[in-house]
């Protein structure tokens, strides 16, 4: 399947500082359409019918999220765009924000209309401070042109914590609290920001909205696989000749992205979805990229044969231990214990028992952690224990 530009349609084509260039490319037509001829219910139904799922990694059906917030009782509701893009190895949202902030603003306004929210927030990661002015300028231009009547968009900046990309911690952060994950239920759609019904969508998810409204759910759901509709933007880096951002129809084989587009050679393993993502050996290169298989937020990091498996896992775990919020036992204690075990393997001083402990601990972290971070933290360990057990065995002291 070839590359297809849906989300990235305007990237590199329009001038992100001038709204006129966006208007020439059907800009704000979708917003006008929903306001003029669609009821709230029709909007959420259309998104539901499209089969669009969240692009931030979890893959929750966007339409169902919107419908939940629309039906939730309450006068005050919020739309949040998660632009915290903290996953290791992703830079697709930055690419999008740098080149096409207007589509995002239009999509947020559509979301606001659909659920009945008057206020939207863009939660921008601290490292993207340089994009603040560009985004604010885009918001101001949209406001001046009258597209944001009755809907306010504010930018809130993070302070550098990975956990604040997790939706509940993100809301804590906007509220001015220490960013820590909350238990669910209640879900944000009924009790989110300041306890009010809230939808939180990733930048890329929202980028799809205007085109779904203009071209119809049918057009969108033609692309992709049965349970993964549309396209996905990938950020690929590591041992590749052409790192960068590529947009592919969902269901495209990993090989196409890694070998054909990014020209990777001599691959040992591929980490898909960043630090909490899955690890696949080269033999699995024909795996289709979809929610049914592997996807995450679209971070693809390639490691060639010169890389050491234990080193990769150890560094991944060190990162997660550093970024755990520390609220729940399995994540706070579990990541630390894992770092200590992996460090032993790194030094070549592992024990047989350690491998069994890693397996048991992975299971419990996955089953009992409060949020996605802790639940997915053992992924790298579990996958490498499955595909590269020899790498561990070689470091066991007999």
């Amino acid at each position: 399947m070839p590359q297809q530009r849906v989300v990235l349609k305007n990237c590199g084509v329009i001038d992100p500082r001038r709204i006129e260039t966006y208007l020439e490319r059907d800009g704000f037509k979708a917003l006008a359409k929903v306001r003029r001829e669609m009821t709230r219910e029709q909007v959420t139904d259309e998104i539901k019918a499209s089969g669009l799922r969240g692009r931030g990694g979890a893959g929750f059906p966007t339409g169902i999220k919107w419908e939940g917030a629309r039906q939730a009782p309450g006068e005050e509701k919020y739309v949040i765009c998660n632009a915290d893009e903290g996953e290791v190895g992703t830079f697709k949202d930055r690419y999008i924000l740098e080149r096409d902030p207007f589509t995002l603003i239009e999509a947020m306004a559509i979301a606001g209309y659909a659920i009945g929210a008057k206020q939207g927030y863009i939660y921008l990661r601290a490292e993207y401070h340089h994009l603040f002015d560009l985004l604010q300028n885009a918001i101001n231009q949209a406001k001046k042109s009258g597209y944001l009547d009755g809907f306010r968009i504010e930018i809130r900046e993070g302070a550098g914590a990975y956990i604040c990309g997790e939706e509940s911690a993100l809301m804590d952060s906007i509220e001015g609290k220490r960013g820590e994950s909350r238990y669910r239920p209640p879900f944000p759609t009924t009790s989110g920001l300041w306890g009010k019904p809230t939808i939180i969508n990733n930048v890329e998810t929202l980028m799809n909205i205007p085109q779904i409204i203009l071209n119809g759910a049918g057009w969108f759901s033609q692309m992709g696989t049965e349970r993964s509709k549309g396209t996905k933007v990938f950020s690929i880096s590591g041992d590749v000749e052409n790192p960068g951002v590529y947009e592919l129809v969902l269901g495209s084989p990993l090989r196409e992205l890694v070998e054909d587009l990014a020209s990777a050679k001599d691959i040992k393993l591929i980490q898909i979805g960043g630090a909490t993502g899955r690890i696949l050996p080269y033999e699995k290169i024909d795996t289709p990229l979809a929610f049914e298989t592997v996807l995450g937020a679209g971070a693809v990091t390639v490691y060639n044969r010169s890389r050491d498996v234990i080193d990769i896992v150890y560094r991944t775990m060190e990162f997660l231990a550093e970024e755990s919020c520390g609220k729940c036992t399995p994540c706070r204690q579990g990541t630390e214990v894992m770092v200590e075990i992996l460090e032993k393997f790194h030094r070549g001083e592992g024990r047989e028992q350690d491998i069994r402990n890693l397996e048991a601990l992975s299971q419990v972290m996955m089953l009992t952690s409060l949020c996605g971070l802790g639940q997915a933290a053992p992924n790298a360990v579990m996958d490498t224990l499955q595909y590269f057990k020899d790498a561990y065995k070689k470091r066991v002291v007999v």
Partner: protein
Amino acid sequence: MENKVNLTLNGRAVSARQGMTILEVARENGIDIPTLCYLEDFSPMGACRLCVVEVEGSRTLVGSCHTPVTEGMVVHTHSPKVLAARKILVELLLASHPDSCLVCDKANICELRRIAADLEVGLPRFHARKHYYPVEDENPHIIRDMSKCILCRRCVIACKSAGNGSMFSVAYRGFESKVVFGCDQLVDEAAVCPDFDGCIALCPSGALRKPVKIGEERAEKALIIKG
């Protein structure tokens, strides 16, 4: 009655009132689920994860202290999967806990020890760094030994709800998380709270205790550890 919820609890059909949590329903039905962070009368935190139970159809185990019961829910509070998970959670807490139970003031009334004994946890199979914080024993009303803290946050919650300004809060991240006083200062002689006894009574480990004067009887009931 319309706001009755029917569910299956360990194979038995029980009914509960709408809005009750799994933990509340279990306790009402005489089932003991261990908890460390849960406090009756306060909103749950879901931090310790010891109260996890198996709910059929759920991908993960769920925290019973914060999950409301729903119609038709099938819950197992003591399945092998649940017990194995709880055991590891306790081992994780013990892994970084000081091995000073024999000389700990709270030794025989320690909730962590009781739960560990109930779950038949011996020496933890994991190893984690221990925290070495100075013992804060200058205040006449409270002694804090944060090396023994298991971060259940009961004191933080109690402090926040007491309404006299939060003296305790959580700082730092991940394994370095710590319940701090002010901006991570030592609780010194000058620190005054009308209700230090409140948080001391809530502390499940030896992290918070009351200075005991020689000859003074200890009020709490001693723990009887089985086995």
